[in-house]
């Protein structure tokens, strides 16, 4: 299964399990979405549960808030990362705060699926990585799978979770690789990070598409005799602090890798948290390998922008093991 297929399977499973689950978004019906994540679901569940919306991102997220008030479980697809911006007020002033605004009484059991990131040669404003915005704004949970298995188990968790979840889908991984599984994976616990690779010399914390670069970098470093542990965050807010700290306590070195711009990114938070809570374990300066604090470039340059496995390996080599 590709990630597109496993996400589709997760939606299908939850729609069968719970008829309160409805999907809404632009072009998700007849076409199955621009990435085909909702393929065939219109046919299976009808147009009252798979809703092609007018081109109104704010109206769509607002509609989801109202659906939650009525006890439905909306799953919104935003077509591309940067088209979450017109819905920003609904996401952060309403979806994130509505339970709080009702004195804790009404669940915003909603998922906002957000295909994000570069690497697919997409036009301008189709390659942003805005996850940190949602980590910073209180009231949302933010998660990001790095492989088809997790995509399945995490999306099923997100739909069942009583609080609003921003579900970041790394576009670059949609069809990148396949996972074979005979039985579908279990539903995620909703917060735990995964040790994707064990190692002893440094901890690399990453998520989403950057996980693949980080793992490839670990392979490269292994050839130099450097053993790197790679932690896949999965949950970007809240962080699985004990997994991160546990790893740093073993390796004493911390590197974070992501594609989003650096300043006030998820990497900053991971570093700050460790510098507060596991400072004594650190033996050398931490290292962030991230996108630049400049707009995501026109796509001919995207490979230069996105941290590659070679870059990651070379920085780790120079910074920590020279």
């Amino acid at each position, binding site marked *: 299964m590709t990630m597109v297929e496993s996400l589709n399977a997760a939606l299908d499973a939850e729609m069968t399990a719970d008829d309160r689950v409805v999907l809404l978004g632009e072009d998700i019906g007849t076409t199955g979405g621009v990435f085909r994540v909702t393929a065939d679901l219109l046919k299976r569940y009808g147009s009252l549960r798979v809703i092609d919306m007018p081109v109104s991102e704010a109206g769509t997220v607002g509609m989801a808030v*109202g659906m939650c008030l009525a006890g439905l479980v909306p799953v919104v697809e935003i077509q591309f990362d940067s088209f979450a911006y017109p819905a920003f007020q609904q996401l952060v002033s309403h979806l994130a705060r509505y339970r709080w605004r009702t*004195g804790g*009484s009404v669940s915003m059991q909603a998922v906002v699926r957000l295909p994000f990131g570069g690497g697919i040669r997409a036009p301008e404003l189709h390659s942003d990585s805005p996850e940190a915005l949602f980590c910073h704004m209180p009231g949302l949970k933010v998660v990001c799978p790095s492989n088809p298995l997790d995509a399945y188990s995490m999306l099923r968790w997100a739909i069942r979770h009583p609080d609003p979840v921003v579900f970041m889908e790394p576009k670059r991984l949609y069809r990148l690789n396949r996972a074979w599984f005979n039985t579908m994976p279990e539903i995620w616990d909703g917060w735990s990070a995964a040790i994707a690779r064990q190692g002893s010399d440094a901890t690399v914390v990453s998520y989403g598409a950057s996980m693949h670069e980080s793992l490839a970098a670990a392979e490269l470093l292994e050839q130099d005799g450097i053993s790197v542990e790679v932690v896949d965050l999965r949950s970007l807010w809240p962080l699985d602090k004990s997994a991160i700290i546990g790893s740093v306590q073993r390796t004493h070195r911390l590197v974070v890798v992501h594609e989003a711009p650096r300043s006030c990114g998820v990497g900053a938070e991971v570093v700050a948290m460790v510098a507060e809570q596991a400072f004594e374990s650190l033996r050398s300066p931490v290292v962030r390998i991230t996108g630049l604090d400049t707009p995501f470039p026109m796509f001919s340059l995207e490979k230069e922008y996105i941290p590659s496995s070679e870059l990651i390996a070379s920085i780790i080599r120079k910074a920590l093991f020279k």
Partner: protein
Amino acid sequence: MNSTEQLLSYPRLDPLDPVSLWRGMVWLRSYDERAVALQRQGRIGTYATFWGEEAVQVGALSAIRHSDWMFPTYRENGIVTLRGLPLERAWSYFRGDPGALFDPREYGCAPQSVPLASHLSHAVGWAWSRMVGGHDDVALAFFGDGATSEGEAHEALNVAGVMKAPVVFLCVNNQWAISTPVSRQTAAKQLVDKAIGYGIPGERVDGFDVIEVAESLGRAVERARNGNGPSFIEAFCYRIGPHATADDPSLYRSSVDEEHWRSMEPIGRMEESLIREGLLSYSQAKAYKEAVRTTMLEAARRLDRLPRPDRSWLGKGTFASEVFIGGLTGEEVLS
């Protein structure tokens, strides 16, 4: 009419009983006056008065039934007391008290919306969900003349039209958005003209006339209930008071104008006509107003006795389970 009975609870509205509508307006006016007094006395903070908009609110509310929901703005902050929210809880919102927040399902009323027009799509989502769930409930969504300029108003109205959501969009055109007159808000001849662009019915009513409001809303609610989709009602009135207690309208509008509109305020006019028609006697009117005033004063005393929230309320209710709240103050990190 028995004044002690009235002391016990809020008036029930019946669109066919004009006296009940008058009672509702008196209730809201008294609530509003008391709130302004509380603000002046420093017992609550900045308060948004709705003097002059009682007819719009009561007329509209009378047109819906209990299973229909309201989606008010800050301006309709008292309307939920006509569905049973204790007065002191409503006022405590303006004391910054988290205890003021309530379960919308209990009163069929969403929390008052502060970001303009952003609650309209919630009404659409709620109403559409009820409809496809096989219910014939209707959403009544309030918004101001200023709010019509927001993109979110547009998206909600347009989506509602497409999805035939049973929503009545009630635009309270009180002619002002803080200091901005409606003539600077849009070049449209009247706000109700916007309905055409959404392919939905529109009506414009005298917002100082509670009967006219109730009738127009009644038609819109019926359309919605019968599966004929949303409507746009423009209730033309005037914001007699300041935008909020912190605002000084003398900076931007003439007192002559204010005087003119104040003379047309809805309650006095209606009271006169009820008395003229023999539906209400002068002494009944006086007694009822006195009774309501007493109710309000008692509630104000209860407000002062409400417990003050402590630190443990911080963030309460943000998440369903509070197990994994990541951000703690340094204090908590260290403890």
